[in-house]
């Protein structure tokens, strides 16, 4: 019995839990790894059957992702020898690079719209959540339910009315339009999540600040916000992930200036159909910002979990 302890799990159960976690991680990571690998395959390797796990890596996908190319006559190709490794890659198909592709712009659009709407959702959501948490608001419960109900309808059901409305308002295919739309969708989540976090912060902290001679807004800014950092960070991650990955609205409402990466990436056409390595390369690059954002805020997330366990 000496090896048994209530607080320390046994060696076997630790081993079992560890195996389970690793197995789960592998299963969820295989598709990601497959996409990353595909980004370095040649078009032929990408669609070969059976799928190739071992292949000769090439940057062709990435070159195709970032460039526009055109086929040229043999005379032209002979007269203009390739200037760099990128040219050499496209020469295999008798092509030359004529300029950058739209991917950079689309990616930038995603960044502007994703982070812009996340910031706006968090800004408005925090203020609203604080008000709902601390003040007596007439019909507070009904208002909260109304806010939540905006999330209940599937995007596809409201897409047409929004499309028509946006056309009238001149918001179609604009950054502002997409930021407002994603904020409208995210705000319900932000208000509800943040209200929960702010409810957890004892009022006494703010009251102490009021007593110490600060105004209500200063108390909110200097005492409540730092306490809510954990909640704000996790809410921001949720909002960003939604706005970043959103596809349905983006397909319908953007086509040029404000088009985000998700509707753009799968339309990358190569020789004789979709250019899978380029699509995979785009998807890989597209993953990076959310990953960095999550890693940066990870400290807050972990702290949030442990804090909750220790407090009170």
């Amino acid at each position, binding site marked *: 019995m000496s090896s048994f302890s209530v607080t320390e799990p046994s060696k076997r159960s630790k081993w079992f839990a560890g195996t389970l976690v690793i197995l789960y991680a592998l299963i969820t990571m295989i598709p990601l790894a497959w996409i990353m690998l595909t980004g370095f395959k040649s078009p032929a390797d990408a669609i070969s059957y059976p799928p190739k796990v071992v292949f000769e890596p090439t940057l062709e996908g990435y070159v195709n992702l970032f460039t526009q190319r055109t086929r040229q006559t043999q005379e032209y190709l002979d007269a203009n020898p390739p200037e760099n490794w990128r040219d050499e890659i496209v020469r295999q198909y008798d092509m030359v690079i004529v300029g950058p592709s739209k991917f950079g712009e689309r990616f930038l659009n995603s960044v502007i719209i994703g982070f812009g709407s996340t910031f706006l959702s968090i800004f408005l959501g925090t203020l609203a959540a604080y008000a709902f948490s601390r003040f007596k608001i007439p019909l507070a419960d009904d208002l909260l339910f109304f806010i939540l109900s905006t999330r209940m309808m599937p995007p596809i059901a409201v897409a047409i009315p929004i499309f028509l409305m946006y056309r009238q308002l001149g918001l179609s295919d604009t950054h502002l339009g997409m930021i407002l739309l994603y904020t409208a969708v995210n705000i319900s989540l932000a208000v509800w999540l943040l209200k929960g976090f702010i409810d957890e912060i004892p009022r006494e902290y703010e*009251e102490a600040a009021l007593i110490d001679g600060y105004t209500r807004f200063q108390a909110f800014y200097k005492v409540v916000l730092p306490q809510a950092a954990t909640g704000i960070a996790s809410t921001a991650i949720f909002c960003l992930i939604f706005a970043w990955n959103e596809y349905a609205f983006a397909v319908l409402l953007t086509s040029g200036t404000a088009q985000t990466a998700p509707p753009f990436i799968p339309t990358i056409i190569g020789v004789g159909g979709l250019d899978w390595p380029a699509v995979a390369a785009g998807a890989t690059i597209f993953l990076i910002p959310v990953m960095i954002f999550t890693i940066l805020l990870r400290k807050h997330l972990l702290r949030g979990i442990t804090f909750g366990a220790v407090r009170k």
Partner: protein
Amino acid sequence: MAQIQIKNVRKEFGDFVAVKESSFTIEDGEFFMLLGPSGCGKTTTLRMIAGLELPTSGEIYLDGEEIGQRPPSERDIAFVFQMFALYPHMNVRKNLSYPLVSQGMPRAQVKAKVEEVAAILGITDILNRPVGGLSGGDRQRVALGRAIVRDPKAFMMDEPLGALDAEFREHMAEELRALHDRMNATTVYVTHDQLEAMQMGDKIVVMNNAVVEQFGTPQEIYDKPATMFVADFIGSPSMNFLNFDGVVSEGETSVALNGHPIAVPRQMQGSSGSLVFGVRPEHISLSDAGDYRGEVLATEYLGTTQIVTLDTPNGEVKARIDSTQVAKVGEKVGLNFEAPKVTLFDASNGLALLSELNQGVLSHG
């Protein structure tokens, strides 16, 4: 340095009345206790004085100036919260500096002031520690430090010892009282512990069910309770209530308990019907003689004294007697009441009847 006057203050939360029209005065430099059972409206009263809650009606005067509807920042009153409410994201020094920074005090001066207060409270060595890992006592000291650092006009303390271990509480109570005596700042202290209130307070307000029951010095409140609630709430064991039906007329000096005449202070108010004879356990002595008799049900040894529980014709009675005196369970003994210390109550409304004993207290309470 301030006198605080509460005049007909009332607080409603929606339909619920947390404090009914209450009036009392806290004199400059007093250590003032707000005492009452949980939920009676003590915290609400304290928060109204500090400005964290605005009265529904009535006035609050700070040094003669009406401040009832002003925000806390314009009152210069410090508040020590029940759970201390130290800013968790700041270390001890920042917590103490915070009230000074809001006043725009220069840095060097803030530093000097914080160190002075830390020295008074004996927390100099923990100034750079985060507040998270502090012991209860140190948290308490930091909370006090944050209150005293800016020399406010008055201190509000909401059960400041409630979160501490029992053994540490007494020590901290002494520290608090010593601190008060040193600074002589007006202090309002909320507690539900009658012993704490009696030990520490210059004056006590006893509240019950949103109403001020009595207001006076600990001695007045103990010896001359204005209501049965106060008589019962203060003292341990609490006052004995012997119910009887009878008539008391003005000038009367005795009442009949179970047919035996018992002396009471000269009554100044007539009453009749269902009455209560109130006497503290230490104002009862037991002897073989005595017409009014009861049977010993139990004894409880307390060192120098013992508590004897007796069954009398008017109900169960507890007497505090010398522990050298022998009281055997089952024995029938005579009870003698110390007449000048007895209070009669009207059972229908719980109010004390006016007598020579309590006239001074009741007419101004």
